[in-house]
């Protein structure tokens, strides 16, 4: 284990930035999100929940996929992909890191989504362990330990130091790059922090949510549960939950006409929207209840059924904080799954 004094962090960022891109939580217009680092930017590592998750580093909210040049009858297709410069994603919390693993299983499954893959392979992820979980956090329900060593490098912020541990080859490479700034550490401070954090985690209000009913074999029973109607009644279909969600990965592919051709791009889409499934001859999910049910069934039953039981929720709590109607996955789990005694 290594450490670096907090007041030297800017030197660390500058060192990384010399040879790679660096994305880190930065406060801009009152909101903290992952932005490109630069001298004088207001870095906020301590912010537990960036407004948007870092998923847009690999799966941008909009991205050009290809261009078409049309002339008379002829169509020319121009690949819009380009090699990505290596970059470091710094300060990722355990929930958001686990969410990237959830996305990997979708986008890196055959046939591989190369738009995602090219960004993913160019990234070194530096996680930051949590020491002050918030009331809306429930990652432990999904078996995530927010104090543990995830990512290529894991860091812990404690007292006057940032502690540093490489976990992978990419992490080792980054460690050698900034090696001159790091000093050896015995790891005692990190151990003490982990113990203290675990005590807080046990007391979080949502820590006892019971997932045992959410299994593939209960798919039809859960789908047909009468509770969906009441649970979804207040849903406005605004899609906020899907946009702040670190694991929501649905997208749309659209064409945009420019002066000299067509750009085909993809953008985030939401299963909460009525035209998500709309076809010329009808809509398979006509009501907001069906769309609401789809979102939670996907996270808690469909996705796990396709991915060896892995849930597609990481308990980050963004939807708990952001839904204008105070609907969220916690209420769904409580209603259909209950809480452990």
């Amino acid at each position: 284990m290594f450490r670096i004094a907090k007041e030297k962090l800017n030197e660390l960022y500058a060192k990384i930035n010399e040879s790679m891109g660096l994305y880190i939580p930065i406060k801009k217009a009152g909101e903290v999100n992952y932005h490109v680092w630069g001298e004088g930017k207001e870095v906020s590592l301590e912010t537990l929940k960036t407004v948007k998750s870092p998923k847009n580093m690999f799966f941008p909210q909009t991205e050009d996929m290809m261009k078409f040049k049309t002339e008379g009858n002829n169509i020319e297709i121009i690949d819009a992909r380009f090699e990505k410069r290596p970059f470091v994603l710094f300060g990722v919390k355990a929930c958001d890191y686990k969410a990237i693993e959830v996305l990997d299983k979708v986008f890196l499954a055959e046939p591989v989504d190369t738009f995602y893959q090219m960004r993913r392979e160019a990234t070194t992820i530096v996680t930051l362990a949590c020491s002050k979980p918030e009331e809306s956090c429930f990652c432990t329900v999904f078996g995530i330990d927010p104090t543990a060593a995830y990512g290529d490098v894991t860091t812990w912020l404690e007292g006057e130091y940032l502690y540093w541990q490489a976990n992978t080859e990419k992490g080792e490479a980054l460690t050698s790059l900034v090696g001159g700034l790091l000093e050896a550490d015995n790891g005692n401070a990190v151990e003490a922090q982990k113990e203290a954090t675990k005590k807080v985690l046990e007391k979080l209000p949502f820590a006892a949510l019971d997932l045992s009913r959410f299994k593939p074999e209960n798919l039809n029973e859960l789908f047909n549960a009468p509770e969906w109607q009441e649970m979804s009644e207040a849903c406005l279909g605004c899609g906020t939950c899907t946009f702040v969600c670190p694991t929501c990965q649905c997208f749309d592919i659209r064409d945009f006409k420019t002066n000299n051709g067509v750009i085909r791009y993809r953008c985030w889409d939401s299963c909460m929207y009525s035209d998500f499934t709309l076809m010329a001859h009808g809509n398979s999910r006509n009501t907001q209840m069906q769309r609401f049910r789809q979102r939670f069934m996907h996270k808690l039953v469909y996705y796990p059924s396709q991915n060896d039981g892995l849930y597609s929720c990481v308990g980050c709590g963004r939807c708990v904080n952001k839904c204008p109607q105070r609907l969220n996955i916690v209420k769904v789990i409580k209603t259909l799954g209950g809480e452990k005694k």
Partner: protein
Amino acid sequence: MIQETLIPKVGVVTDIRKDTPDVKTFRVVGTDGKKLFEHMPGQCAMVSIPGVGECMFSITSSPTNKEYMEFSIKKCGCVTEVIHALEVGAQVTVRGPYGKNFPVEGEFKGKDLLFIAGGIGLAPLRSVINYVRHYRNNYGKVVIVYGARSKDDLVDIEEIKTEWMNEPNTEVYLTIDREQEGWDGHVGFVPAYVKELGLNPNMTAVLCGPPIMIKFTLAGLLELGFDKSRVYTTLELRMKCGVGKCGRCNVGDKFVCKDGPVFRMTELDELPDEY
């Protein structure tokens, strides 16, 4: 750069056949004049007009056709409307093939096969039927029941009359919904006709058509003693990616683009009723 499935190829429309007032069949090849890619019966492809949109269509030609692919497309939405306005020589983009095919090299082999189609539902079946005709000795008796709103709505009637009806060990039954001048064949809905025909329940059946036709035809087949595990159909939902990633064409934990569009009725029974 590594290949990306979402980036299509350019196709050229080399022939357009007007089948019915709202269905046209488009023949497509690559810009080099060759077939764009190989497929199996039941598989689909994404066809697009840049600037308008991209849609999933079943490939109606048989894989045994080594020269070109065909798509029978009904005019019913904003993309198909533009496709219908295309002329020979126009270019489109195509990517695929997507989805699982009918088990023509598996469960279908050696079996008596019953094909039941309604309207444009013939499109995916035409690929299987012509595949079976090509490898005729690998399969038993073939019975085809095909219905449409009127005689003018029967897709690809020329091929049915000149080729399918003259195929050995093959029976073709056509029906239209209402009496019409110039039609001396059967009149009535497909589900009722299927029951009337008193078909042999040991056949392996494939149904394709509007949901309401499938529902009632299936009920009729079960009454006749057909085994649900030997009845197949295809589903159709909105799609964007074609490879199980964009998230919209799922029925329960199955994606129609990737796990379908061909489903066995017993598989559908296990899925929630949301299609």
